[in-house]
C-alpha cells in the first residue's frame, strides 16, 4: 500500500482533478520527486527554484506539520497520509 497524498484544489488541475493520489517514496523529498514523475509540473508549484518547499506551502505527515518532524527529510512509509495545504488560511 503506497502513501496517500492529498492534493490542494489549486493543484488538482495537474492531477486530472483528483484530490488524492497514491505515491511511493521513503521521505517527503522522495515523494515529491515521484509525484513530479506522475504529474509533470507539480513540483515547481510546491517547491522553489532551489528545490525547497515554498514559504506558503505546509506539508503534514499523518496530520503532523513536518516542521515539527524532520522537515522535507521526514520519513514516510506505506499507508501514511500526506497533506499538502496552502499556508494562507485561518486566523
Amino acid at each position, binding site marked *: 500500500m503506497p502513501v496517500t497524498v*492529498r492534493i*490542494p*484544489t*489549486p*493543484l488538482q*488541475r495537474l492531477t486530472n482533478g483528483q*484530490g488524492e493520489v497514491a505515491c511511493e517514496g521513503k521521505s517527503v523529498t522522495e515523494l515529491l520527486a515521484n509525484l513530479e514523475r506522475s504529474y509533470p509540473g507539480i513540483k515547481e*508549484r*510546491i517547491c522553489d527554484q532551489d528545490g525547497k518547499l*515554498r*514559504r*506558503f*506551502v*505546509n506539508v*503534514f505527515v499523518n*496530520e503532523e*506539520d513536518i*516542521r*515539527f518532524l524532520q522537515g522535507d527529510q521526514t520519513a514516510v512509509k506505506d499507508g501514511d497520509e500526506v*497533506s499538502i*495545504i*496552502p*499556508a*494562507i*488560511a*485561518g*486566523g
Partner: protein
Amino acid sequence: MSYVLGLKCRECGRLYPKEVIFVCEYCFGGVEVDYDYDAIRRVLTKAALAARPHTLWRYRELLPIEGEPTVGLSSGFTPFFRAERLAEVLEVRELYIKDDSVCHPTLSFKDRVVSIALTRAKELGFDTVACASTGNLANSVAAHAARAGLKRYIFIPADLEMGKIVASLIYHPTLIAVEGTYDEVNRLCAEIGAKYPWAFVNINIRPYYAEGSKTYGFEIAEQLGWRAPQHIVIPAAGGSLITKIGKALKELKLLGLLSEVRTKLYAAQATGCAPIVNTIKERSDIVKPVKPNTIAKSLAIGNPADGYYATKAVLDSGGWAESASDEEIIEAMKLLAETEGVFTETAGGVTLAVTKKLIEQGVIPRDQSIVVCITGNGLKTQEPLLNRLGQAMRIKPTLASFESNFANRKEVSCQ
C-alpha cells in the same frame, strides 16, 4: 458600484478575477483585493464621510463588495477614547483605547471581517458559511449567518472557554468541537473546504474577509481627527489585523485623507504562543510554528497564516514586538478595568501587558501618541479570573448586618 479591480497575488503579482480564490495557483502566495484608487479618490472625501452613518460601511469604497452591504449593517465604529487614568499609571502623555469589546453584535473585532465576508458570500451565491475559529469568529459567524438566513458550520478547538461556546450555540449553528489545537482545526477545515461547497470565511473567501480588518485602522485615524498615531499596539493571532491596520493607514495616505503616516506598529502575543514575536525579535523572515500553551486562547495560533506579512509590516514600520505571561495578562485585564472601566478578554490583557512592557523598556517613548487595540470582551473569557478577583461581601438584608460588616472600614463614613 464596485471599485474592486480583481485579486492579485501578493508574491508574484499574478492577477485573478474577483471569485472564490484565496491563494495563487502558481506560488501559493496569498491573493489580495486590488482597488481602483483613482476612482475612489474622487468620491471618498472627508466631507462625504462626515455625512455617513457611524458603522464600518462608511468606508464602503475600500471594501471588497459589489453591491450594497447586506450583513452587519450595525457593526463597527466602536468607541475610541483618551485613557487618562491608565496613562497616569503607565506614566505616558497621550494614550488611547480603540474599544472593539463592544463591537455589534458579538463583542469582538471579528464582527468587522464577518460583515464583509458574509455580504460577499451572498454575492458569490453561497447558502452555507463556515469557519475555523478560536472563539470570537465562531460567535460572529454564527450570529451574522443567523440573521442573514445562511446555514452555518462552526469549527472550534474542543477546549474553548464556556462563554465562547455558549455565545456560539445560542445562534443554533452546527458547532463542531475538534479534539485538537486551533492549528489542527484549521488544517482540517482547509481539507473540508476543498471538498464541500461552503464559504469558509477565513479560508476560501479569506481575501474578502481579511479586508474588513482595515476598518479598525480607518476608524482609529478618523476618530483621532484624521491623524495617524505614532504607535499602535496590536494583538496577533494569525497576524492579519496588524497587516491590515498598516494597509488601512497607507490607503488613507494614498487617498489624501491622511497627510502623514509615521505610525510604528507593535505585535503583542502571549509568551505561551509567540511565533510572530519570535520572528520579529530575530528579524527573520521564516516563521517557526509553535505548540500553544496560554490562557489567551483567542490568540493561540501556533502556525499563523499571516506571520510573514505581519512581521514585515511591523519591521517596515519601525515597530517591535513583545510577549506577556499568563500572570501579566490577568494583571493587565484588571488594570484596564480598574482604570478605564473596560472589561476585555485575555487577548486585550495581552495587548495592554505588552504595551506596558514596551513603555518600560523605553521602546515606546512616554511623550508620544499611543493607541492600544482592545479587540474582545472579558465576559467571554471568565475562567482565568475565577479566584483572582475580590469577593462580594455577603450580608443579611438589615442595616445592622451592613454596619457590623463595615464598621471597622475607615473608608465608609456616615453622613
